[in-house]
């Protein structure tokens, strides 16, 4: 089964890369862009299992290694 984990900086952490992308988009004429946050995206293929089991494992992986809880938050999509 396939899952996606999105990792990005916490809202309280300054994201200069996101800011740079935002400025670049606006300078290209996309005035409607208000803000951009940059993050990481992991595509994970798991052996077949129940949705519950998958969520548990993914949450553990995201918390333990895929993200740094001091500065990052994550979202899981199955």
């Amino acid at each position: 089964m396939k899952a996606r984990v999105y990792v990005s900086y916490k809202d309280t952490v300054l994201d200069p890369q996101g800011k740079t992308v935002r400025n670049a988009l606006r300078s290209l004429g996309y005035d409607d862009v208000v803000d951009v946050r940059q993050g990481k995206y992991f595509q994970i293929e798991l052996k077949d299992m129940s949705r519950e089991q998958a969520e548990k494992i993914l949450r553990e992986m995201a918390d333990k290694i895929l993200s740094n809880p001091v500065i990052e938050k994550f979202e899981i999509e199955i």
Partner: protein
Amino acid sequence: MKFGIVVFPGSNCDRDTYSAVERHGGSAVYLWHKNTDLQNSDCIILPGGFAYGDYLRTGAIARFSPIMNSVVRFAGAGGNVLGICNGFQVLLEAGLLPGAMLVNKSLKFLGQDVFIKTERNDTPFTSKFEIGDILRVPVAHFEGNYYAPEDVLDELERDGRVIFRYCTKGGDINDDGNPNGAMRNIAGICNKNRNVLGMMPHPERASDNVINKTDGSRIWLSLLKSLKGAA
């Protein structure tokens, strides 16, 4: 005095650290990351480099290496651990020190000499320093922008655990003297027990008068003095 220098795949400052330690009278051994034996080292050093290519996050994968279990235990028992640059990043990921590193404010790699001011000399790493000593040391990093939540920063300050701060040549701690945006100009911190130190600048690259840089020597001399005293 034996210094164990951990080598992860991608560590590249291990040899400089080895020669700096030996030049000052210590004896050094390399500790391969897959082993767990610290070989009776009196002090452990996590050197600079790009462990695991800095993939995922800098230091994120290295902290799970077998050797790190031993290092964490060693630190817990009061052993001295010094993390330099990438080594500091590994200590942060391993939770031996609080906070995290973000990308430099300039969004570019930074390779140049900087000035850091010594705030405390009551650690084994700074016992031969005077408070206020300004050191000129090279930095070479892409992620040296130290971050921690405000309450953690306040706690660090309160407990006198900020050991080095970036400053100008004249010793002013301000934006001008901050090369990478690190919060409160923090360049090096220690843990509660004051036996684990992490610093971004490279003292092992400023420990040799042939290259006209010797401000880093004090760290090795401090450690040798402290370890001798402890033995």
